[in-house]
């Protein structure tokens, strides 16, 4: 792998210059070590930590123990967040589950649409994570480390594979608007390129204001006038290039062309007026409203345009309280669009070349939290549920399980590093051979502790 440290500004151009005329570029991995099953990832991030116990992981035993003290055998000496030092009581699932799909997989009645695609997805009930607070947990989920400054997965993937999108960034981030009650903050660090070159960073597409920061011409400058300026800039830069030895000039010229093209390609992307009524109904969205539903539709449009890594954030899943009142609202916001995305990709023949991941940053405790108003659940890192769908993923599968109270993953435990290794494998990348030299060290997305590709869920 090539490291930043091995390259000067000039060398970067020499290496990548020829590919920079468009956003399309080759990746750092010359020959993929594994068969590439998918070309891209769409990651639906439910920020705040959705409760697996109400959504994906039915626990009748927990219902039985509702209101009784949590058996100490589970919790003694364990890491807790806001419940640290509190009396620990069991909280039975607040919403019923129902059997779905050909296998009769039980998931929440709050998620009927996801239930309707259960035969297309692989549900993992045995995820764990290291972190127990939002910010570090997001960092860990995105970068494989709880230390800031590491590249997030979208940046890694674009670095490794390059971009196949014309005139669009290879890593796009969409955050639902609509703030719910008071959602957890999301830092731009979550889509940072860390120590990788800046061009691999995630670019946020916004539904309000400019779609991309500084995309719009200043007031009083029409596209035609902008074009004249850019042409003059190019002309003068070329003139300059004849006088000096600076290979960066060629790159600079290409970046201006690309910027100008983005000024057209992004509005085209955002303008969903070419979508049919039926498609809009499928997602249940009003394009441009910034909702999760609109962003799911946008994710599909981005996928069609070859964007490598698309990450959606939907916030306000942090139900320390008001679990009963708020969870159904969040579920409703994401249920139909999440399912619609799978159905839509499938009918367009794109699902088999796309990996869709649906996850939070951690799960929630089987114990109730009552010190913040009406009942809720605390952060929890020993168990959470997530699902994946798309190319190479075994559809209709349930993988792993938690103990009978849903406290800890106990069978076929899947760590965040395992998840990353598995996702990379789908993209054709061998996780432990995918490194970047920084500070003299071979950094890996999957860290130094080792990770396992979860072959059992791969078809």
């Amino acid at each position: 792998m090539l490291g930043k440290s091995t390259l000067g500004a000039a060398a970067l151009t020499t290496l990548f210059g020829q590919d920079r005329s468009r956003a399309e570029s080759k990746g750092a991995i010359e020959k993929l070590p594994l068969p590439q099953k998918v070309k891209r990832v769409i990651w639906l991030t439910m920020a705040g930590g959705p409760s697996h116990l109400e959504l994906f992981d039915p626990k009748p035993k927990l219902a039985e123990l509702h209101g009784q003290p949590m058996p100490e055998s589970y919790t003694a000496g364990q890491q807790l967040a806001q419940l640290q030092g509190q009396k620990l009581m069991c909280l039975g699932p607040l919403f019923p589950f129902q059997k779905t799909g050909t296998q009769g997989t039980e998931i929440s009645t709050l998620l009927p649409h996801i239930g309707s695609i259960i035969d297309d997805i692989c549900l993992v009930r045995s995820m764990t994570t290291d972190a127990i607070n939002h910010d570090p947990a997001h960092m860990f989920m995105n970068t494989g480390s709880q230390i800031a400054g590491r590249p997030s997965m979208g940046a890694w993937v674009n670095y490794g594979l390059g971009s196949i999108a014309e005139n669009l960034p290879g890593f796009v981030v969409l955050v639902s608007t609509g703030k719910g009650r008071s959602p957890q903050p999301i830092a731009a660090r979550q889509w940072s390129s860390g120590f990788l070159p800046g061009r691999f960073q995630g670019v946020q597409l916004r539904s309000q204001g400019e779609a991309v920061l500084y995309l719009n011409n200043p007031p009083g400058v029409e596209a035609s006038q902008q074009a004249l300026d850019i042409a003059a800039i190019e002309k003068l830069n070329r003139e300059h290039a004849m006088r000096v030895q600076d290979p960066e000039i060629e790159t600079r010229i290409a970046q201006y062309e690309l910027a100008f093209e983005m000024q057209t390609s992004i509005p085209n992307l955002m303008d969903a007026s070419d979508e049919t009524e039926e498609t809009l109904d499928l997602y249940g969205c009003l394009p441009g409203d910034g909702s999760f539903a609109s962003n799911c539709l946008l994710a599909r449009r981005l996928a069609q345009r070859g964007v490598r890594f698309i990450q959606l954030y939907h916030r306000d899943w942090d139900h320390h309280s008001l679990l009963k009142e708020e969870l159904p609202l969040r579920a409703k916001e994401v249920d139909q669009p999440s399912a619609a995305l799978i159905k839509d990709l499938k009918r367009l023949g794109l699902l088999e070349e796309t990996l869709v991941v649906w996850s939070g940053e951690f799960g929630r405790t089987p114990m109730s939290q009552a010190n913040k108003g009406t009942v809720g659940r605390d952060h929890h890192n020993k168990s959470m549920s997530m699902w994946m769908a798309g190319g190479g993923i075994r559809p209709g599968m349930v993988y792993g399980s938690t103990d009978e109270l849903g406290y800890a993953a106990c069978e076929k435990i899947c760590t965040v590093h395992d998840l990353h290794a598995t996702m990379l494998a789908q993209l054709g990348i061998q996780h432990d051979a995918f490194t970047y030299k920084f500070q003299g060290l071979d950094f890996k997305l999957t860290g130094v502790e080792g990770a396992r590709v979860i072959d059992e869920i791969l078809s």
Partner: protein
Amino acid sequence: MTLRPLLVFSLACCLLCLIASFASAQSIEFNRDIRPLLSENCFYCHGPDAEHRQADLRLDLRDQAVSAGAFQPGNAAESKLIDRIFSADPQLVMPPGDSNKKLSETQKKLLKDWIDQGGQYQTHWSYQRPKRPDSLAKASLDPSSSIDALVDELITSKGLTRSKRADPRSLIRRVYYDLIGLPPSPEQVAAFEADSSVKAYQELVESLLANPHFGERMAVDWLDVVRFADTIGYHSDNPRNIWPYRDYVIASFNSGKPFDRFTLEQIAGDLLPDSDQEALIGSAFNRLILSTEEGGAQPKDYEARMLADRVRAIGTVWLGQTTACAQCHDHKYDPITLKDFYSLGAFFADIQEPIVGAREEGLAIMEPSDSERLSQLDAAINEASQHLKELELKESDTSDSQAAKDRLEKARKQREAFTKSLPKCLVTKATVNKRTVRLLPRGNWMDESGPVIKPALPEYLVPSNSEKASGQQSNPVELTRLDLARWLVSPENPLTARVTMNRLWKHFFAMGLSKVLDDLGTQGEMPVNPKLLDYLACEFIDSGWDYKHMIRSIVLSRTYQQSCETDPANIALDPLNRLTARQSPFRMDAEFIRDYALQYAGLLSTKIGGPSAKPYQPEGYWDSLNFPTRSYTPDKGPNQYRRGLYTWWQRTFLHPSLLAFDAPSREECCAERTRSNIPQQALVLLNDPTYVEAAKTLASRALESKSTSVNERLDWMFAQVLQRKASPTEQEELLRLLDKQHGYYKQHSESATKLTQNGTFQSSEPLDPIEHSAWIHLARVLLNLHETITRN
């Protein structure tokens, strides 16, 4: 006859082989040739980390490698190491396949030859004390000439030839950028073009070193590496009071504060015998870490994070060592142990601070006049309270007493209002109730089984002193932060001066002498010119850690003054310009791109220091922040036009135009910014209101200037931005653009009105919007040129 050519050929071959083997026999040097191979391919499993070590074999220590039978010095044929690396058996070959490491044939041969030659080891280059190169011993050269001599020695041996001195315009632009981060005016360039003699250049350098903007320029690198920011970093990323530290850094560079003092103040300003307000503000360094206010955050967890954050900082800022690895295990490449990590962390266990939750307000920072005012206010309180007491003793009537009470109350309120108005800064305050630091197995803060750890210097760097270092003498005195700081800048520490000088070299030549600026350990790079780095380090220490002296020495060298242009043969020999037989062009850093545009526009505020500023920022950029939600109000008036380094540094959402040009979020120490070339940069320069307003104002200046003809105006504007005359082609192109834009706005006067209303700055006299608009486009083009944002 027919045999002769063959014979000659064979002879020549033999001769070549002889020369080759002679050369290799002569030239194998462990630190340069062998250690990097062993480190990259072997140390991961056969290095310092005992826990991960395979086959009980460690190759980083010669004695152990030999006694474990890895190789027989002088006998490669009988050495297992050689057997294994040459093995064709996938089960046996080293490094093993699943390590994803591979030795090339040349590298294998090199290892073989090295063993045959005796397999000698050397102490890692950066762990040996730097020494002045012998070659300089005889000649009594001034520092600049010494630098040149050491560069010459190397480039001559590599067959490179020096570039000529840069043309005066390039040179003055370069030295302005490098020393104050501002452009020279066209007049200053013209003056230097008229006299660019050695003396004139020296005078120029001296004036820039004395320029108050010098401190601002040098501060940027330092603020990156210590990760200075206005916010706490985690979760809510709330503000904290810390900007006086930034001004302290600027002032320290300006006043020529010795780097050793600078170090002591930052790490232990509160413990210095002569501690004063300045030293205390310096000690804000210890508070630059990330902190959290997140509900449910566990103090023990964050205690561990904060400790680790500080150890990483000491490692990056002063030692150039990647200590982070040793938070969970002994370092796999360098001899940094798990214990070293926590021993370093223990130095900071005395810092009084909240672990979870809002930071305190901090120290009230006072100018001398403020102290005076405060004494007056205190005196007023004293007087009023004295008066009240007297009245109470006299049992005066209630109305008098009430009046006196009111007076006292008023005096107190005045004092309170005054102290409230003073700037505050988080500083370091030591507490006797130190936190207990335990060694955390696998870095796990929930595991309390590890031993309690006392402050100690890294044993691998203080071997002779390890008893004292670990505080296990018969009469143990616990080491303090001051001891740590003193050691960091003591001649016994081989790293600090090298680390600092390597970064300084990068400031002036685009790349460090050792290219990995944050790792001078075994996985870093042996400097391309080790003698030069050693020389710089020694000169730095011997000069009394005089930063300005070192800068002066570098910029006055011929090496620095070279042109970036060279002949193709030199480029072929040294494409990345590691050996500095020429200068390197590079894109300016984020902050200065802003400064230059505002300066050309005549908008830039030259005020130094003060609270961080809020330039225009896209609406909604902070939408994802919460606890509390935040809105962004751009500053008005001169504060809108502050230099880039004063920009409000919101760690989780850094100002997007700085971010686009690779300014780091400063969540972690950053010794080297990436330097990317991406379309967002074009979008910023074209569309960010800051740059639109700069273009607008530059255009109005052109229209208001004394020049009357279009050509004169064009020349004027071109000279402002590029400090040269436009070539005929450039002039033609720009005039054509002017004409086209003018024609357009003549047809679209509404657009002209809109364009000229961008930004908040209003020109002194009303201008014709149509003409103004056309010139704005011209200004925009100039501000967007590669040449405009490139230092060469």
